[in-house]
């Protein structure tokens, strides 16, 4: 039984998994991948932002300006972290799937499509928010959200990476949500 918080079976408790219905490989992958991408998002926020102290690190809405060399280093670290995390998880899942019967079917494909749609909408909305923020900031002379200056190289790099990593987090969360509901 997997039941975080002990809420039991109800439609709002996506963590509840009856013991007779174990997770499919794709759902298991989604959980581990979500954890990995939340970690990568935490790393991104830790490197780019400041404002609130959390677990010995500073992150928040205030972007910390960085040198080009450091930005490149952070970017490469993110790519390497994402490749390693996804490779390890996919490898482990493939090894586990080899011991199982059918790996995935039409329901998994349908859920993957819904999750892709959710991440598409996240990207579309986030990009529109960024464009509005930049245009409105230029029109009014100062950033709409204090400290979120997207006109610098650091600001642009952060905004784009945040949307990319955020889209992955939304995708995995949508996968899990849909597995719980259908």
């Amino acid at each position, binding site marked *: 039984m997997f039941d975080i918080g002990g809420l039991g079976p109800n439609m709002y408790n996506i963590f509840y998994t009856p013991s007779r*219905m174990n997770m*499919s490989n794709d759902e298991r992958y989604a959980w581990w991948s979500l954890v990995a991408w939340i970690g990568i998002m935490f790393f991104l926020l830790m490197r780019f932002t400041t404002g609130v102290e959390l677990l010995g690190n500073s992150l928040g809405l205030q972007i910390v300006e960085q040198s080009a060399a450091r930005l490149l280093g952070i970017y490469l670290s993110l790519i390497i972290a994402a490749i390693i995390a996804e490779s390890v998880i996919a490898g482990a899942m493939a090894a586990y799937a080899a011991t199982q*019967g*059918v*790996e*995935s*079917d039409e*329901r998994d494909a349908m859920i993957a499509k819904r999750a892709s749609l959710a991440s598409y909408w996240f990207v579309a909305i986030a990009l529109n928010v960024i464009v509005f923020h930049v245009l409105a900031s230029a029109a009014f002379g100062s950033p709409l959200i204090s400290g979120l200056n997207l006109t610098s190289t650091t600001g642009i790099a952060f905004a784009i990476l945040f949307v990319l990593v955020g889209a992955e987090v939304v995708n995995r969360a949508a996968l899990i949500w849909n597995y719980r509901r259908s």
Partner: protein
Amino acid sequence: MTTRKGKVSNRIREMRTERHWSQGELAERVGATRQTINAIEQEKYAPSLELAFRISLAFGVGFEEVWTFS
């Protein structure tokens, strides 16, 4: 024009128990995962026409004996 949402019901659990098949066994016969069979039995997921036909064929009965639409 208005469209009413229908409900696809099935007798999979009943027919599966009659044959002493587990969800995994039926899943293997129709090329689906056990989780999908479970979701179909609980009527949380309506399968494609192809999978619905494969399930009927696995039981060796007609389509309408397994599936109903209301």
